[in-house]
């Protein structure tokens, strides 16, 4: 009996913790995120990344910094436990791997091109495209969580879904990329600063 009550309590809590959003709230969130994205010229943020795989004892953690400049310049930089940065610029990835610089033309690689676009868009949160995704909206306390599942089968075999958490201002606070195996990468953003001047030197390669 006690177990049953516990189970019931747990179920109620789970439902409370993440409940489906009404259509009206979903439209309002989408509008807010798009507005925020459209008025965002630059973003800098720290992030902590957790790579979760069921068979591991612990998640693999790494730390880094993100820099974004509209319309589509992104620098993704890991500082701990290794030094690695990648600049996404149109059809090229500029990589700095512990001082060794290289670039990769991803124009011919559909998968990486797509991933690049999605990462750029997910930083702003703007993935609201029903041609490309099945979209589900949830409330999580004061935050919102939106699940984007790619419709393209090839891409879905690489990433099953993006779960993006937005704060009350429509800013992205967390991105979770789920793989078909249900293993995932969770990226939590902190110290986010928007529309501060960001010198071009940040994106020099």
């Amino acid at each position, binding site marked *: 009996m006690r177990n049953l009550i516990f189970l019931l309590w747990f179920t109620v809590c789970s439902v409370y913790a993440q409940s489906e959003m009404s259509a009206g709230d979903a439209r309002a969130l989408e509008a807010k995120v798009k507005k925020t994205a459209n008025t965002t010229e630059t973003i800098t943020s720290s992030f902590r*990344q957790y*790579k979760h*795989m069921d*068979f*591991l*004892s*612990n998640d*693999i953690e*790494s730390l880094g910094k993100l820099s974004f400049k509209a319309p589509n310049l992104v620098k*993704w930089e*890991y500082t701990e*436990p*290794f030094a*690695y940065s*990648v600049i996404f610029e149109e059809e090229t990835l500029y*990589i700095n*791997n512990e001082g*060794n610089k*290289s670039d990769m033309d991803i124009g011919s*690689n559909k*998968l990486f091109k797509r*991933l690049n676009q999605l*990462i750029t868009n997910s930083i702003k949160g703007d993935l609201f495209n029903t041609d490309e995704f099945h979209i589900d909206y949830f409330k999580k306390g004061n935050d919102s969580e939106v699940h984007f599942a790619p419709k393209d089968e*090839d891409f879905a*075999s*690489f*990433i099953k879904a993006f779960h993006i958490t937005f704060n009350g201002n429509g800013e992205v606070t967390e991105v979770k*990329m789920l*793989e*078909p*195996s249900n*293993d*995932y*990468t969770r990226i939590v953003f902190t110290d986010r600063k928007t529309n501060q001047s960001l010198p071009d030197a940040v994106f020099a390669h």
Partner: protein
Amino acid sequence: MRYLPISLLFLIWACASYPERNNFQSMETSGGSITNPYFSNPKKDYVYKADINLYKKNFSGILILKKLGVQHHRVVFTTELGNTIFDFSFRDGDFRVNHILSEMNKKMVINLLKKDFRTLVTENPSVLNRFASEDRFIFETEMAKWKNYYYTIDRKLEKIVQTKNGKKKVSFIFSSVDAEVAKNIQILHHNIKLSIRLKAI
């Protein structure tokens, strides 16, 4: 005619076994097994920053190795962002591809990776012969018709040299060893331009 003895000498050398080429001294004792302790703790997640150089191309990512049971290891390679490139299981002599990026899903690539990682995670191969060379003991083992030579110094596994027809094909070099964790590992192919460098993180 003058060249014949030289040619003959070369032919003999070309047919020589790896221990003969390297002037190893044979030791009488045989049998038993040699232990590769570097991926043997099931409580530990072995996580490495990996740099792969294939011809002039450079790929990097994270290599994760985990012992899941007796003769059971999982080997996963992901991008820095965490997207899985390949995911293999080695269990009781069986090999399974759990996942591989479609672009890499080629038999030749898989076989190459399978052989390298099987060598890396095999824990207690049977010893066929033992040798000595300077201050090292060398243990000869066999894996799928390839002879592997395990070099130890002060009872620590220093490197594995994989050979075919007496010729060195791949070297696995373990360095900066601390508490049975090799902080640096190099996998160097001698017949193709492929090298994998692993740094523990």
